[in-house]
């Protein structure tokens, strides 16, 4: 008989392999399924030996950019959601609920409407600034006063700040019909019709964010014990918080600049994978790396087929899937705690 610890470890590895296999499967499905279904052999040919014939161009020109973008955005959302929940010790949070995506979106709208920026390389910096701005604002509002900081208070602060930012952003956009039409689909968190350039632009920032996750992963477990206990165990809470802040800024900003505000992926993934990983944040992050992109890809595929030939943006599908998770979480917490 093996000791239980090793058994858990082996289960975790097996589970991670399954998650990666799932991710690969959704990738192939994302290349093949859509308004026009493409056979898997054609997908294979388009990837390995591309000729501009038949359905190969659909895979090459449309589905590959879309899938790559979904992978990056899903990864960014999953990791940022996990970090927010870990560092904030708040199970009811992700970058969308806390208004961070709205902040990034608002600053992008400013950049497009007032400064005339249209390329992702110029406005992505505004997305980072907006994400950071919103996060600091939520922190200030949610943590102020003598009352204990509860997850619900932080959530309400995020919802309020997100609403104000969405309102202002909307007003600005409405004064510019061109911007309105350009950003109408971006609003709902759609992944289609974006050139590979967008994915290429956000990739380095997502990569840096992911590396930062690797750096802080270990200290997240200590932070989870609370500030005092973490300090007494030799953890550097401030360092963890600052690195996480940078990581979330990069990840949420890049995701919003790439695909518009997409909610609930970051909320769902940590809760979904915890059943398989246990409370260890390093494993949750590792699982999120595979599960979050798979989830966003699956949402995108569902959006493509559910109202064929029209498409439902991925952000709408994730809200459909994720909001019930939020309801389940708040019900589970019990009536006495808020």
């Amino acid at each position, binding site marked *: 008989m093996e000791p239980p610890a090793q058994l858990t470890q082996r289960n975790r590895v097996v589970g991670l392999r399954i998650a990666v296999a799932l991710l690969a499967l959704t990738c192939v499905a994302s290349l093949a399924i859509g308004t026009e279904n493409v056979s898997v052999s054609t997908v294979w040919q388009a990837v390995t030996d591309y000729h501009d014939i038949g359905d190969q161009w659909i895979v090459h020109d449309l589905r590959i950019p879309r899938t790559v973008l979904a992978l990056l955005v899903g990864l960014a959302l999953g990791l940022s959601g996990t970090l927010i929940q870990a560092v904030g010790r708040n199970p009811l949070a992700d970058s969308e609920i806390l208004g961070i995506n709205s902040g990034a979106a608002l600053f992008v709208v400013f950049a497009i409407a007032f400064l005339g920026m249209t390329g992702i390389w110029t406005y992505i910096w505004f997305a980072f600034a907006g994400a950071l701005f919103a996060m600091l604002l939520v922190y200030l509002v949610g943590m102020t*006063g003598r009352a204990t900081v509860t997850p619900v208070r932080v959530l309400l602060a995020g919802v309020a700040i997100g609403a104000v930012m969405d*309102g202002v952003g909307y007003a600005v956009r409405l004064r510019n019909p061109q911007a309105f039409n350009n950003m109408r689909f971006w609003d709902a968190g759609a992944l289609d019709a974006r050139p590979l350039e967008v994915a290429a632009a956000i990739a380095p920032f997502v990569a840096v964010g992911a590396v930062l996750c690797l750096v802080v992963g270990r200290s997240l477990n200590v932070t989870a014990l609370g500030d005092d206990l973490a300090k007494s165990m030799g953890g550097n809470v401030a360092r963890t918080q600052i690195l996480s802040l940078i990581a979330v800024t990069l990840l949420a900003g890049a995701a919003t600049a790439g695909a518009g505000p997409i909610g609930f992926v970051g909320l769902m993934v940590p809760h979904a994978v915890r059943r398989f990983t246990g409370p260890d944040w390093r494993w949750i992050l590792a699982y999120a790396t595979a599960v979050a992109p798979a989830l966003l890809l699956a949402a995108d595929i569902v959006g493509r087929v559910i109202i064929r030939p029209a498409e439902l943006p991925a952000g709408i599908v994730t809200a459909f899937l994720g909001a019930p998770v939020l309801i389940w979480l708040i019900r589970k917490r019990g009536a006495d705690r808020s």
Partner: protein
Amino acid sequence: MTITQNDTAGVTFGRRQCVIRIGNVSARASWRAIIVVAALLVGAFAIAVVAVGLGKYTVAPADVLGVLTGSNTSFDRVVVLEWRMPRMLMALLIGSALGISGAIFQALTRNALGSPDIIGVTSGAYTGALIVIAGIGGGYYAVAAGALIGGLVTAVLVYALSYRNGLAGFRLIVVGIAVSAVVNSVNQWIIIKIDFHTAVTASVWQQGTLSGQSWSQALPMTVCLVVMAAFLVAMGPQLPVLQMGDDAAGALGVRPDRARLAYLVVGVGLVALACAAAGPISFVALAAPQIARRLTASPGVGLVPSAVMGAVLLLVSDVIAQQVFSGSELPVGAVTVSLGGAYLIYLLISQARQR
């Protein structure tokens, strides 16, 4: 109508009270509340007189008063009465409908954040209205009926999903936020399905706008609002009794479940009226009862002060929406969401300070 000092009753309420009596209907109110309501009404009238003259064709306030009294018969009359008055009136009516609705929901949930725009009722009403507009088509009454059904379904859904050994305030709100996320997604999807020109209209409407109001829209809205207000008067002062808790309410002769259901239907109905006329204008229902409660220094939210406060808030927001950018106007909802959202943030901070 008579107003009598209530000192003869021999009951001390802690502040000076009076009884207003019109025929068989009487209501008790504090002097402060009466003064605040009167001041708000005067203020609303003054703002309306000034604001109705603003625009590309300006009319001086004195000339506006002349139009109202009938002494001014120039072109000003057309501008004021035909062009701008319906919009002004709709701002006041819709604002008061939202204010009352917010007060009802906040009293039922016993929480400032339990207002219909936070817990998704407004979004749900908008879904119903959108389905009627995009799918079936119809006039104001059809859209209002769709909005009523959409709002009721959402309210019942939120209530059922958050019910577990009773209703905990914060659970209701978080469930409401989650449900409104789903409902907003549905709304966005419907808008994407509609082609571009309709989409701009629907999207402006999604924020809530008062532009393009005419007498033909103001009339059915007024009728419905009067009916609902009469119903609320007929129900009597059951709302403050409900706020004391179910046991106390039962002991005082109020059937809690029946009264709650009636108030819920009226509360959703008022949101639906507003939504069918102007789209889902958010945060007026949240802010109006709270501001009114603070001004009148009353322990609970009152329907009449909330209604007047809502009217003033929406009127001011609409003036800002029309005047803030020269040349083009904003949907009023974009103004209320910014102002009301800022107020919500203030409310969260002050709640945290108190505890």
